[in-house]
């Protein structure tokens, strides 16, 4: 048998990897360039084990971090996609049907779990599940500025991974363990991958900070996140989605909890074993779940665009976030919180990602037909 051509587009395949240890790169986190030491030399060529692709985040030099909930790991993939591109208009209608054909199935068997844009090439990367059952395949689909689709080769790619599995406690019983940890969001910030997760069993909150390059000896420090209400009660609060953000030249994360408030947490507080209490700066409404957040600047002002499960797209005024008094009582919510407005014309947005300084990328539509398109940041 003569194998003629490997059709799967392999970004990492047969490419001359230009990364070397010591190559300087810049962090895109928090809108600030921080010199770091390149880590791609620590990635190894081979088959990347990816059981699921839940959430994505870009690190430096085209390295894509994939949160794998089923595999309980974070996988770093070298996309080998380092050619600078300008943000083109992107408009791919029926992207779920297109991905379905690429992967040889029907559109109803395609789940798009996350969308992110490579800040260098401006190509979009989608975390895709081919199938809906426990044996579904995880695929990373790339969409270029012309709307052409390809799949990142996982068979032969520079990669590394870190397990999120903790050592079982002594009282681990004998009744079997069906516990899983769903990765609700990841981000790369100052040389660390931040991972927020939610257990399908115990109510807990663990934000993990994992140094990159990965080392099995350092799975990262777990930080407990708490949420206080009007001073009387506090709970552990699983983080739903978060984004790095600079306030008064200090790095923060803005985090949306599973139970609605938007809080700010100083990155300097994220120390191993710490119990961190976020400061509530807005409440985005009951019965609602923030999905993605994109900070941007326009006309000399700072904003954060927030995609929500039921409250549509919200535009948060994000100048001088330090100046707002923390919300300490629901009764002052209308006057105490950071102001935001609803962007009514965008409905059915499921994912939102930054495309460039002026544009965002949205995945929107109904379950039957999804479109990937760029929008001007409002």
């Amino acid at each position: 048998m003569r194998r003629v051509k490997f059709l799967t587009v392999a970004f990492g395949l047969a490419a001359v990897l230009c990364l070397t240890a010591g190559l300087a790169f810049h962090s895109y986190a928090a809108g600030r360039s921080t010199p770091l030491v390149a880590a791609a030399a620590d990635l190894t060529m081979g088959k990347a084990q990816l059981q699921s692709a839940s959430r994505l985040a870009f690190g430096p030099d085209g390295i894509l971090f994939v949160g794998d909930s089923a595999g309980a790991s974070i996988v770093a993939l070298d996309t080998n996609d380092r050619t600078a591109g300008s943000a083109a208009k992107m408009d791919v209608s029926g992207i779920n049907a297109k991905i379905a054909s690429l992967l040889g199935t029907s559109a109803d068997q395609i789940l798009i779990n996350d969308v992110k844009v490579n800040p260098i090439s401006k190509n979009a990367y989608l975390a895709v599940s081919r199938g809906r059952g426990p044996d579904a395949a995880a695929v990373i689909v790339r969409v270029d500025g012309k709307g052409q689709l390809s799949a990142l080769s996982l068979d032969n790619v520079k990669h590394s991974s870190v397990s999120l599995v903790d050592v079982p406690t002594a009282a681990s019983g004998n009744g079997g363990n069906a516990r899983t940890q769903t990765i609700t969001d990841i981000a790369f910030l100052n040389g660390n991958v931040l991972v927020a997760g939610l257990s399908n069993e115990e109510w807990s909150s663990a934000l993990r900070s994992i140094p990159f390059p990965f080392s099995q000896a350092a799975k990262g420090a777990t930080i407990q996140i708490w949420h206080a209400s009007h001073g009387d009660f506090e709970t552990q609060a699983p983080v739903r989605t978060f984004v790095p953000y600079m306030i008064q030249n200090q790095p923060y994360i803005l985090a949306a909890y599973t139970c609605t408030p938007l809080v700010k947490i100083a990155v300097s507080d994220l120390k191993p074993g710490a119990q961190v209490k976020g400061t509530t700066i807005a409440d985005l409404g009951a019965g609602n779940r923030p999905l993605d957040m994109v900070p941007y600047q326009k006309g000399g002002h700072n904003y954060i665009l927030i995609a929500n499960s039921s409250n549509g797209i919200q535009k948060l005024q994000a100048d001088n976030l330090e100046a707002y008094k923390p919300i300490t009582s629901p009764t002052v919510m209308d006057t105490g919180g950071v102001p935001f407005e609803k962007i009514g014309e965008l409905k059915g947005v499921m994912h939102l990602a930054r495309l460039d300084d002026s544009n965002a990328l949205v995945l929107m539509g109904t379950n039957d037909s999804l479109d990937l398109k760029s929008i001007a940041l409002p």
Partner: protein
Amino acid sequence: MLKIRLALAAVALLSGVTAAAQVVALHLENGAFKIVGWKVGPAEPPQGWPSVFRVYSGAGDVPPLLGTYSVEAGSLVFHPRFPLAPGVPYRAVFSPPGGKSIEAIFDGPRQETTPTTKVVHVYPSADVLPSNTLKLYLYFSAPMSRGEAWQRIHLLDDNGKPLQFEFVEIQQELWDARNTRLTVLFDPGRIKRGVLPEMQMGPPIVEGKHYTLVIDRQWKDARGVPLAEGFRKSFRGGPADRTPPNPETWRMIAPKAATAGDLIVEFPKPMDYALLQRMLGVSAGHGNVAGAVSVGREETQWRFTPREPWKAGAYQLTIDTALEDLCGNHIGQAFDLDKFQQITRSIESKTISMPFEVR
């Protein structure tokens, strides 16, 4: 363009399309698509094999399937990257250089249609649930499909009207690894005291009111087949429980030596079914004791059956302090901590133990 629809493993005979007047046939064999009767040239065309032979699984402007090409016994073969999916039609298009394109449609493996999957249990089992109940566990008899849970689960009030925003509709859905158990969280914002959703909407369950959990029959299992039957569970709202579980209130019934009888632990209130499977254990001086766990009496009883008969002597029940009741209160700590009570927050779960004697 010629177009022929065929069943799985069928052959499309497309006569008169080659210069040599040889019969050209498109085959689907063992999950690979093959052109028979067309002489493959000595080299791949400049535009690549996809310019000659492509397979699609959808209509309109869609890209061809990912896969690899090979030449086997003189025939061009396309191997899809992923196995063919049940119930999906595949369109193979052969575009001979300089000739007319021809295509054939093949069906993928047969789609199963017999509904067999059921909801086997919903925990908590009790028919009175605290108003601040945090979780439900839905157990299915076979793996389920992701992505439609929030359309298929409803909580009705005593007038049969669906409640609004009672659950955290987590997009990823909190399944176990086999997709046979789904964890459903009530909105913690409506359980925790003093936050906006709780102030605006109150708790999802109200003490004294009656509710019905409804699971739609239309929910598809992992084969894409709906459930064999829907599921309903009725319950009444009980008082809120904000008291951490206290092992000192548990009752232990020790087994007899030289028997394989159960160690029985009884709780004064129901505990979290899933956590009971793994957060209680038995140890002796030589380490953990192997055995099987069962949970009964509406999650107020935990039983441990040892693999080997008990030996007379001292044992310990080991307890992970992360063990929760139905309301997210865990040992030593309520779900929402009243700061004025000055309870020390535990940084991480710990293991405590309670001794018992086997005689």
